[in-house]
């Protein structure tokens, strides 16, 4: 044992100079690490205040039109949407000559129109026609399905309906997204938003189907704005009601059109079979997206209280959950 100790190489003695050099190096390493830690430390995490100043999206409402809602009943979408818009004073109340109209559809899924998981193409074509008839200079149609937009737009019929009716189709290209913080929102902070389609647009119309939704309870007008969100947006499903409220705070449309000709009452939001649909023969058009959703909820047999995003949006001042207080203009197309 003692021999082994004796045989170990003798460590050379550290002199004062070496000690100072090593101490300086160690100190520099610790200093750099501490500086990096300080520089990279995020004291707020996901709840951090916005790095950029809030960016409000354009307000597309028509103040003179006021808060209105029309509910048309009938099985023919073209007739019901025409009747509902006419009841509100006609498309000319909202669209003026030279307006550049943006229509936000639901083209989230590559599913056929018959399944009503997406905006009905015939309805889209009719709304486009009405916009042009009212004097619109241009109409653009958009959405940003995450999965394979080419297939989604084509197979759900939106592409053909838009292009054949003279509208432009705006596909979700990365360059059309901008990181923004939407004022008044809880969760939309320094997050990519599909702002490109808004450039130059003077009016915004949302056209969406009525569907049961596994997570939020329902997907109606306000949730339709989800398509304006980029990034890994499904993380917001964890706080879906607040997020839908945020979408409604962020986006003020000219009108929303809620197509409840058929409502997806089960296995939403994708459905998959005609068995998931119930014929509810209703078209809702409103300048108040909260009121529209409140009326649409009834088609799914739900109350606004069962859909917290409606109540949250009302509390945020977006609109009213008591759509009856707007004295809905009810029309029947037979």
């Amino acid at each position, binding site marked *: 044992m003692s021999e082994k100790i004796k045989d170990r190489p003798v460590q050379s003695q550290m002199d004062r100079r070496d000690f100072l050099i090593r101490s300086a190096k160690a100190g520099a390493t610790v200093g750099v690490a501490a500086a990096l830690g300080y520089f990279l430390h995020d004291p707020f995490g996901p709840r951090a205040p916005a790095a950029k100043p809030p960016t409000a999206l354009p307000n597309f409402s028509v103040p003179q039109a006021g808060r209105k809602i029309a509910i048309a009943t009938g099985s023919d979408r073209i007739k019901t949407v025409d009747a509902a818009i006419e009841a509100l004073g006609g498309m000319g109340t909202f669209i003026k000559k030279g307006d550049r109209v943006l229509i936000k559809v639901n083209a989230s899924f590559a599913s056929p129109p018959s399944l009503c998981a997406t905006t009905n193409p015939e309805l889209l074509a009719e709304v486009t026609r009405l916009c042009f008839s009212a004097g619109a200079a241009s109409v653009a149609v958009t959405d940003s399905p995450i999965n394979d937009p080419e297939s989604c737009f084509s197979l759900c019929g939106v592409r053909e309906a838009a292009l054949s009716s003279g509208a432009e189709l705006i596909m979700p290209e990365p360059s059309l*997204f901008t990181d923004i913080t939407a004022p008044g929102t809880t969760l939309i902070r320094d997050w990519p938003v599909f702002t490109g389609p808004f450039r130059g647009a003077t009016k915004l119309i949302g056209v969406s189907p009525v569907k049961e939704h596994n997570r939020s309870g329902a997907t109606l007008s306000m949730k339709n704005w989800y398509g304006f969100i980029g990034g890994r947006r*499904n*993380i917001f499903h964890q706080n879906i009601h607040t997020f839908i409220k945020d979408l409604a705070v962020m986006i003020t449309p000219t009108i929303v059109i809620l197509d409840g000709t058929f409502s997806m009452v089960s*296995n939403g939001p*994708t459905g998959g*079979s005609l*068995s998931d649909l119930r014929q509810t023969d209703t078209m809702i058009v409103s300048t108040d997206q909260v009121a529209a959703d409140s009326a649409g909820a009834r088609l799914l047999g739900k109350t606004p209280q069962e859909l917290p995003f409606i109540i949250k949006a009302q509390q945020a001042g977006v609109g009213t959950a008591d759509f009856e207080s707007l004295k809905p203009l009810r029309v029947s197309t037979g």
Partner: protein
Amino acid sequence: MRRAGAVETCIGVFILTLLLVIAGGIYIYSASSQKTAYRYSSIVSRVPSSVPSYLPGDLAAFGREETFGPQTLSDKIDGKADLYLATGFVKLTVKRFAKKADAKSWIELSIYQMRNQADAFSVYSLQRRKDSKALNIESAGGVSAYRTEDAIFFAAGPKYFEITSSARGLMDDMTILAKNLVKAQPRYDALKTESFFPQESLEPSSISLHIRDVFAFSGLDHVYTAVYTDRGCRVTAFISKRKNPKEAADIADSYGKFLLENGGTAAGEIADAPGSKIYKVFDTYEVVMHRGPFFAGAHEVDKLDSAKDVALRVYRKLGEAER
């Protein structure tokens, strides 16, 4: 002072490089993974479709095959992903086929690879459409199937299949496709627990398998339910096979406590079902019992007599299973 040797220097450089790579990876991931503006092409794994052997002759591949994992499933089916992710989802493969004579008539085949046969049956059963019709496509064991006006849904082994269509008039092709797919699957035995429900007044195709948080009780998992109609009253019966009789008794006890803690009151027992307990929960009745390794009962029944009658029939049937 001794200078570091070559080996020590190499190890030091390696460790420092490794740390730098890890730090860089963390930085890149945190900066880009959730906020990348638009990233569909990078999340969908795409491979060219070949013509599968199970395809009917008048159909051709339409578009490309797509696959989705747990991280990307919601990109395909949005909010419905929750059901799958909570039930042992592994992978989704989507393929489309169109009529050779009419490309507007197309079929979408979705194959959900689940962790096991029970998980596949669970997602199948929990999405069963009302007014659907049973579909006999079984050439091997362990297949459950139904059809609607325009779609076919079935579970075979650890896979759940959906065949949906763009137009009416494709059902013949879809049925052939389903049969061919079933033939291509390995044989699996039918799940046994579902056979323990008594047949009398059982609503056809009502048997479902709930994997977790059943009846809002976090301690309850893998429960089969079936719907009965007893003298006009709808009764949901349930059965769950546990590891052993003690576990079944323990779950019955803890579920009973859960009911009492949430507004329930004791409302007697079924005389011919030893160990059974009845609870009144607001305006409905809950029967909780255990027999051998089985935890069973009746859930949220409007009429006490119907709850007791159906639960007793289940109890007796479980006695046969024990033997």
